[in-house]
């Protein structure tokens, strides 16, 4: 039922298109053609704004650049629509690649401003470079659409070409975002750090999303300029960007049907309000605000929620293989890390043998999580070396380290609530999406997760912990870092977890387990290390470390700071 919602909505749009063709004047057909063009731009915008989760305000600029490329090619060199299309797509992609280098790594509002400013520069250039762009007057007399030399008339032929292109675009989005890339984007939006920790190159994912956005925008721009047949810097102005953003938000930013339904709604809406005369734009603003406020997830996602079915699709079959995890050795030598004036790691050295479980204890703020962050490259060590399986990994980026075979879990569970347990695990697994999901089933069974098709947000807390460990295992690690895995678990669950972790260690996996819960840790760990103030203060067998007076003092000092 839920799967049917976008199809029903799409069918409505198609029926409306059909109605327009059957009964419509040129006017209805033209407005719908323009809506189709915006749908293409919005489909592309979903890559960066929806899937990559970056508030880019450059989509309008890319549309404009694509439009100018086609316009100039048509008027100056006589190139028809189809011949100039590669240029219209290529130029915005090139621009996107160029500006991505400095701005793509910026955070939300900085990124938004940077893209806004780039848009302003491009618009000023189009206004000032009169020789090329015709300046503020723009370029008129652009020929209409044509394919392979055959002109495409106004009215239904244009409508058909525009909407076939939109359908092709939708197909591309579907093909690109289904499976692994979609799941990887979801975890990147939910928690970029966790995404990198499972080996996802988030910078690359964002970069590709940005280029795809620009490509779609370029195609939309090319269609636009041959349908409207004039161009001026107005196409580069902020209102065009706002229209695309509005379409994405009203339609639903992650749904293909959302871009299409949104485009038809947003482009047609002002026409419906024409009867209000001077107030129609005011009404448009009010409706926009109402929609954004009442259904912020967009109409398609909201409709899906209304029809959300109780039955989940059947899980894929578990792969036949059972996993073994051959462990590898970790050697840490004299690692240091400072944050501002605070020394978090002050020359830590330790080693883990293959198949060994190392317990890491220490009072709050002693540097345990910082050490894990240093090993996984999230906050790299400022000095010292970290060698893993014979390679120095201390200067590598987090996703590279993850791909070397170091996996981790987080203190607070970092899963995508809106995605199934299965897909949360599969996104970290190698191979094709099908084999990744098959493998994920094995790991979920192994961790005792019995409802793999439930969305993670609906699972109980203990289950979510297990899903997270399964995800860490999915990348076939040789070293597993667990940050307080027992936190929030009851005693039965703790015992169950100990059993499963020991089993993994028996198969050869090396592990570092951070834990305050000594009764949980002591039977699990082969060896324990205690950190205090960023230094190792004790190490040895669990019983020895527990009895060490320095360890007791460190913990006591935290419990009773006023003690003499």
């Amino acid at each position, binding site marked *: 039922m839920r799967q049917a919602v976008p199809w029903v909505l799409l069918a409505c749009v198609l029926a409306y298109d059909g109605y327009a063709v059957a009964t419509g004047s040129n006017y209805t057909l*033209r407005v719908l053609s323009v809506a189709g063009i915006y749908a293409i731009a919005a489909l592309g915008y979903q890559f960066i704004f929806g899937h990559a989760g970056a508030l880019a305000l450059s989509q309008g600029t890319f549309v404009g650049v694509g439009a100018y490329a086609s316009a100039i090619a048509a008027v100056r060199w006589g190139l028809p629509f189809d011949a100039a299309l590669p240029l219209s797509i290529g130029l915005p992609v090139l621009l996107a690649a160029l500006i991505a280098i400095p701005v793509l790594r910026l955070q939300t509002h900085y990124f938004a401003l940077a893209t806004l400013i780039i848009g302003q520069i491009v618009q000023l250039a189009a206004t000032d470079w009169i020789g090329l762009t015709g300046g503020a007057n723009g370029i008129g007399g652009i020929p209409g659409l044509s394919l392979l030399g055959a002109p495409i008339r106004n009215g239904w032929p244009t409508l058909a070409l525009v909407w076939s292109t939109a359908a092709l675009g939708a197909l591309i989005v579907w093909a690109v975002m289904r499976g692994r890339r979609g799941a990887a984007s979801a975890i990147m939006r939910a928690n970029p750090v966790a995404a990198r920790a499972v080996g996802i190159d988030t910078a690359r994912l964002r970069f590709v999303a940005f280029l795809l956005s620009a490509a779609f925008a370029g195609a939309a721009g090319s269609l636009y300029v041959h349908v409207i047949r004039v161009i001026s810097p107005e196409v580069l102005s902020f209102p065009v960007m706002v229209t695309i953003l509005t379409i994405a938000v009203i339609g639903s930013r992650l749904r293909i049907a959302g871009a299409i339904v949104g485009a038809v709604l947003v482009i047609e809406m002002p026409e419906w309000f024409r009867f209000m005369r001077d107030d129609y734009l005011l009404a448009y603003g009010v409706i926009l605000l109402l929609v954004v406020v009442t259904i912020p997830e967009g109409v398609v996602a909201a409709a899906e929620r209304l029809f959300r079915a109780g039955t989940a699709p059947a899980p894929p079959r578990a792969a036949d293989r059972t996993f073994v995890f051959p462990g590898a050795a970790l050697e840490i030598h004299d690692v240091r890390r400072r944050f501002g004036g605070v020394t978090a790691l002050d020359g830590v050295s330790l080693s883990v043998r293959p198949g060994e479980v190392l317990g890491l204890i220490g009072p709050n703020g002693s540097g345990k999580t910082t050490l894990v962050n240093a090993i996984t490259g999230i906050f790299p060590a400022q000095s010292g070396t970290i060698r893993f399986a014979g390679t120095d990994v201390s200067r590598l980026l987090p996703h590279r380290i993850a791909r070397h075979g170091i996996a981790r879990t987080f203190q607070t569970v970092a899963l995508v609530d809106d995605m199934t347990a299965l897909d949360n695990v599969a996104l970290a697994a190698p191979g094709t999406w099908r084999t990744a999901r098959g493998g994920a089933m094995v790991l979920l069974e192994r961790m005792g997760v019995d409802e793999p098709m439930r969305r993670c947000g609906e699972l109980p807390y203990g289950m979510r912990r297990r899903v997270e460990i399964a995800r860490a295992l999915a990348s076939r690690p040789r070293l597993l870092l667990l940050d307080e895995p027992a936190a929030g678990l009851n005693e039965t669950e703790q015992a169950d977890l100990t059993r499963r972790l020991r089993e993994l260690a028996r198969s050869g996996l090396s592990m570092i387990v951070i834990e305050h819960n000594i009764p949980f840790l002591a039977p699990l760990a082969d060896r324990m290390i205690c950190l205090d103030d960023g230094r190792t203060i004790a190490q040895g067998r669990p019983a020895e470390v527990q009895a060490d007076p320095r360890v007791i003092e460190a913990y006591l000092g935290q419990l009773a700071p006023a003690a003499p």
Partner: protein
Amino acid sequence: MIRRAAILALLAAAPTVVRAAEANIPVLVPITGFLATEGTSQRNGALLALRNPPAGVTAKYDVTDTGTSPEVAVNALERAVSDGNVTAVVASMLGTQMLAMLPVALENRVPLTTMSGTAEITQKGNPYVFRFFPADSVVKGAQVRYAIDTHHIQKPAVIYQTTAYGQSGHAEIDKVLAANGIKPVYEDALDVSVKDMQPALAKAKEAGADSLLLQLHGGPTALLLKAAAAMNLRLPIVAGSGLSQASTVALLESAELKGVCGETGSSPISAETPGMAKFLDDYRAAFKSDPDGFAVGQYDATMMVLTAVKDGAMTAADVTKALATTRYPGLAMTYKSDGKGNMAHSAVIICFDGTSRTPNVVKHYEFPAE
């Protein structure tokens, strides 16, 4: 005469006897966005004519805002012509929108009347476009010639806007100056968002300018004149049509306007003729504001269409033919197509004497169609 009108009105009220000729004239102009002020004048001029058509004609009309984007203008035109039976269209004064609407007008064979000054719209060989405001070549010719005739300028500074209006006007100004062997000593292009005019003025002065030729929209024209007065610049200023708008003048003190001149198609507020005086009164009564050259130009254009209908033009084709071939004495001037759709061939120069905000028409320039 009165009896004749009464009889006609009676006849009109009795459709079974004789139908009054009906004209369907959609009004598609920008009333929001950056050309809203000019577009509103254009709309008001059209409305005044449509609400008071010549006896024997009834006018049907619908006003649609075209905003600033070409696609909205095209959509509006497609919608207007979709029910057939359009007599003529009052079309946007925004050049880009006109260029976008031209192919649609050609396809549907409906005449467009416009106030757009953009040269290109009448250079496409499209027989359905009729420009009732003097083209840039006419008004800019008047502006430069007046500056040369009156102030004997040698080293003008040209300050214009980075909009279609500004850039087209600037190109024409430079052309006319060059034809007179004059080269501007300073040129500056300003975005409409520029608020502080002092740098531009100071640079013009520094460059040794002996006069200022402007091609700015209304608001920026007022900003510049204010800044010039504050700086005590004392250079002759000949402005573009931005100065002729009542809303521009309302922003300035009379003293700040002293000695400033500008070009426009016509100056209804100066009420030079009894017809114009009546137009001024009617306009003020209807819209509670003062008309400018765009308003009277579009009034004349719409009246010419309505008059053609009264004289028997039944279809868009008839009206197109009438617009293309007849001579029409309007309030502002006599209109006659040059064969390309340019209907207006004269411009006026208005000047302020510093005692009031009402300008005087100091000079008429005629540029007969070639």
